[in-house]
C-alpha cells in the first residue's frame, strides 16, 4: 500500500458517463457506461484508506474495499480484482445493482461532509476490466469429493456455490429455467445489467468447477431427500427466491393485459419478447401503460415499457415521493426518461371492455395520515376523489412472496405462514437436517447483495457441517 499518497480531496465523485435520457429511453443498451481506467484511478485516489474501514462493515459480503481501491489507485487492476473476487463472486453484478448508498458508501468517511467515494463505480470498473482483459487463469482448487447441491442459480445460490467451490467442494447448481442467473436474468433489465455480463461471471464460476444444471425443477424432478439419499449430496442450499407474485385483489385484475411485474419482465428479459417474432415469446403493451408500485421492480418495469415503445408510462404509488422504496438513482433515471409519477394514488379497479381487455384504471387519491407499524405515514383514501386513467396495459409490481414449490413438496421443511423458509439466523440451517436456505426464499423480496450475503453465510455453515460430519466418522 502506498502510505505516502495524498488523497484527492475533490468533494464529488468522478462523474459516471451515461447514455443521454432522450436516446436511452428507446433502446435497451446500458444506461451507465462505466469508468475508463483514468476515471477509476482518479476516483480511487479519493479513498482515505481509513484504518477502521467502516465501508467493509457496510458490505454484506465484506469486500476488502480499501485494499482493492488502493490497487486501483496504483493501476494494478489484476490484483485489485483478486482482492475483490476473494469475497465476492459477482463483482460486475454488484457494481451495477447494489444499493451502495445504503451500504458501503453510506459509511464512507468522505460522505460525512461531501460525496462518498464511488465504491460501486470502481468495483464495476475492476470487474469489467477483468472480464475484458484477463487471460484464463482460474483453475479449480483440488476437489474434496464432498457434494453440495444448490437449488436456484440466483445471487444467493451462485455466491454459495462460488464460496464452496473455492473451498474444494463438488458443487452442482440446479436451475428451473433454461439459463442460470435467476433474477439477474429474468428480472433486472438489460439496460441496468447486461445479460452477457451475468453469463460471463457465471462462466468464471464454472471454471472454478461449479456444475450448472438448467431445466431442473427441484421438488418435482428430485425431492430434497432424493438429492441426499440417491444422488449423494452431503448438503443442500436453497436459494429459490421470491417467485410468487402478489396481486392487489381488486376488480378487473384478471383482464387481458394485466401482467405481474414478474411475468412482464420475464417475457421481456429472459424470453426476449422485445425481439418477437424472431424470439417466439410475444408481448404487447399498447400505447399507455401503468405500473402499480414504487420499488425497484416497478421502476424496471416502467422503464422497460417505455423502451418497448409506449407513449405514456405511469408509476402509480399510494404514498408520496419520500416513501418510494426504489433507489433514488432509479427514480431519477425514470423521471429523466419521461415516466409519469402518479403519487398518492391507489388503484381501486382495473377497467375493461366486454371482450375482457384493459381500458383503464380507477384510482382514489390518498393523503398521508399517522405513522403506521413501518414508521411511514399511513396513506388514507380521500372520499369521493376517484379518477380514471385510460390505459392499454397494467403491470402489478407490489411485491412477491417466496416460491411455494419446495415447501409444497417437502413436508418437513418448516415455513412461516407467509411462505418464507424458517432458518437459524446464525447458521441459516433449516428445520431439515443437511439443508440450509437464504436469500429471498427466507426473507421475502429483498436485494441482490443481501441474498449474496446469505449465500456466503450458508457456505461457511455448510463447510463447518460437512467437516464435522466427516471428522466424526
Amino acid at each position, binding site marked *: 500500500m502506498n502510505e505516502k499518497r495524498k488523497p484527492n480531496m475533490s468533494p464529488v465523485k468522478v462523474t459516471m458517463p451515461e447514455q443521454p435520457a432522450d436516446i436511452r429511453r428507446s433502446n435497451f443498451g446500458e444506461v451507465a457506461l462505466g469508468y475508463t481506467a483514468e476515471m477509476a484511478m482518479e476516483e480511487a485516489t479519493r479513498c482515505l484508506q481509513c484504518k477502521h474501514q467502516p465501508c467493509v462493515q457496510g458490505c454484506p459480503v465484506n469486500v476488502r474495499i480499501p485494499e482493492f481501491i488502493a490497487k486501483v489507485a496504483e493501476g494494478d487492476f489484476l490484483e485489485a480484482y483478486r482482492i475483490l473476487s476473494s469475497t465476492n463472486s459477482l463483482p460486475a453484478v454488484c457494481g451495477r445493482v447494489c444499493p451502495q448508498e445504503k451500504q458501503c458508501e453510506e459509511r464512507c468517511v468522505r460522505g460525512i461532509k461531501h460525496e462518498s467515494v464511488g465504491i460501486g463505480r470502481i468495483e464495476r470498473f475492476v470487474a469489467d476490466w477483468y472480464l475484458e482483459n484477463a487471460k484464463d487463469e482460474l483453475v479449480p482448487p483440488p476437489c474434496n469429493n464432498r457434494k453440495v447441491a444448490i437449488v436456484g442459480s440466483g445471487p444467493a445460490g451462485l455466491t454459495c456455490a462460488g464460496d464452496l467451490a473455492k473451498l474444494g467442494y463438488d458443487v452442482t447448481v440446479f436451475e428451473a429455467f433454461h439459463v442460470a442467473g435467476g433474477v439477474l436474468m429474468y428480472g433486472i433489465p438489460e439496460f441496468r445489467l447486461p445479460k452477457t455480463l451475468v453469463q460471463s461471471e457465471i462462466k468464471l464460476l464454472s471454471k472454478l468447477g461449479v456444475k450448472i444444471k438448467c431445466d431442473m425443477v427441484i421438488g418435482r424432478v428430485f425431492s430434497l431427500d432424493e438429492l441426499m439419499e440417491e444422488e449423494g449430496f452431503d448438503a443442500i442450499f436453497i436459494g429459490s427466491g421470491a*417467485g410468487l407474485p402478489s396481486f392487489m385483489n381488486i376488480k378487473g385484475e384478471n383482464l387481458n393485459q394485466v401482467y405481474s411485474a414478474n411475468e412482464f419482465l420475464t417475457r421481456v428479459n429472459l424470453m426476449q419478447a422485445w425481439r418477437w417474432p424472431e424470439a*417466439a415469446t410475444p408481448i404487447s403493451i399498447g400505447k399507455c401503460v401503468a405500473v402499480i408500485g414504487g420499488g425497484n421492480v416497478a421502476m424496471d418495469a416502467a422503464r422497460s415499457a417505455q423502451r418497448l415503445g409506449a407513449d405514456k408510462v405511469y408509476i402509480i404509488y399510494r404514498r408520496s415521493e419520500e416513501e418510494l422504496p426504489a433507489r433514488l438513482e432509479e427514480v431519477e433515471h425514470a423521471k429523466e426518461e419521461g415516466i409519469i409519477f402518479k403519487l398518492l394514488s391507489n388503484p381501486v379497479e382495473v377497467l375493461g371492455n366486454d371482450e375482457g381487455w384493459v381500458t383503464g384504471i380507477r384510482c382514489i387519491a390518498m393523503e398521508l395520515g399517522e405513522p403506521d407499524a413501518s414508521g411511514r405515514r399511513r396513506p388514507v383514501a380521500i372520499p369521493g376523489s376517484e379518477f380514471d386513467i385510460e390505459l392499454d396495459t397494467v403491470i402489478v409490481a407490489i411485491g412477491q412472496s417466496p416460491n411455494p414449490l419446495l415447501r409444497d413438496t417437502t413436508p418437513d421443511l418448516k415455513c412461516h405462514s407467509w411462505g418464507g423458509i424458517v432458518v437459524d439466523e446464525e447458521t441459516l440451517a433449516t428445520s431439515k437436517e443437511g439443508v440450509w436456505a437464504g436469500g429471498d426464499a427466507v426473507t421475502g423480496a429483498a436485494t441482490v447483495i443481501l441474498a449474496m450475503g446469505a449465500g456466503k453465510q450458508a457456505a461457511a455453515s455448510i463447510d463447518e457441517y460437512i467437516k464435522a460430519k466427516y471428522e466424526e466418522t
Partner: protein
Amino acid sequence: MNRIVSREVLNSETVMLDIEAPAIARKALPGQFIIFRVDELGERIPLTVAGTDTEKGTVRIIFQMVGKSTMQLGRKQVGETIASFVGPLGRPSELDHLAGKNVAVIGGGLGTAIAYPQATYLHKIGAHVDFIAGFRTKDLIILEDEMRAVSDNLYVATDDGSNGKKGFVTDVLKELIDAGKHYDLVIAIGPLVMMRAVANLTKPYNIDTLVSMNTIMVDGTGMCGCCRLTVGGEIKFSCVDGPDFDAHQVDFDEAIRRSKAYLKQEAYDREREKEKEESHRCRLTGEVRHE
C-alpha cells in the same frame, strides 16, 4: 437438450413423440405436465404428459400442431433434439380414493390423449371407467384401441356423426346419467368450451367434476402468474395450484377470455410458419422436409 426417441403421426394435425428424459419419466404422474422449448429463441409451452416409459426413460407427449412452436415440434424427427424439456410440473391428479368407484373420463379432441393416462391409472386401481371421447370428425379419432383397453365402456362421439354416433360428449354423458348411471366423479379434459359444457351439465346433478386447465404459461413454477384463473372467487395459479380444479368452481368465461390474450400474435406466427413449411414441401411426395 432432449432427444426424440420415437415419432408417430396420429392424424392430420396430431403428433405423438417419445422424448428422452429419464428423470422426468421416473417421477411423472397422471395430471402433470412438462414445458418444452424447441430452440434457443423458443417459447415455453406446457403440454400434459400422455405417458411414461421408465425402462426406456422416455416421456410421451401428444399435441396438435396449432401454433408456431407445436408446428416446429411436430416437424422434429427421431434422433433430433429440442432445447428444453422440463418437468414434471403441477400437482398430480388425486385419484387413489376412487378404487371401486364409478368414474366417467371425458376427452375432447386432443384432450383424449391427456385423459388417457387418468383412465389408465383409474382402471389399474380398480375403478369402473366409462370413457367418453369426442372428436370433430371420424378422421381425427385417436387412441381408440388404447382407450378401449383401459375402460369398461368406451363411447366415441363425433360432432358430424361421421363415425355413426352424432353429437357432443355432453350428449353422451347426459344420456348415460338419465339412463340411471351413477358417477362418483366426472373428469373432463379438452377445449375450454367443452369443459364448461360438462361442468354446466353435471352441476344440477351434483356430480363431482374435475377439469384440467391448460392455460398460457411462461415459467410453469408459480413465478409469473400468467396462468392465473379464478376458482371459487379466488385467484389460483394453474401451474402450482393445479392444473386440476373443481369444475363447478372455475370461472370458465374468464379463462376463455384469457386464453385469447395472444390470438393476434399467434395467428401471425402461424401464417409465417405455414409459409416456411410450404417452402420446404417436396413437390414429388408432398412431404415437408425438415430444415
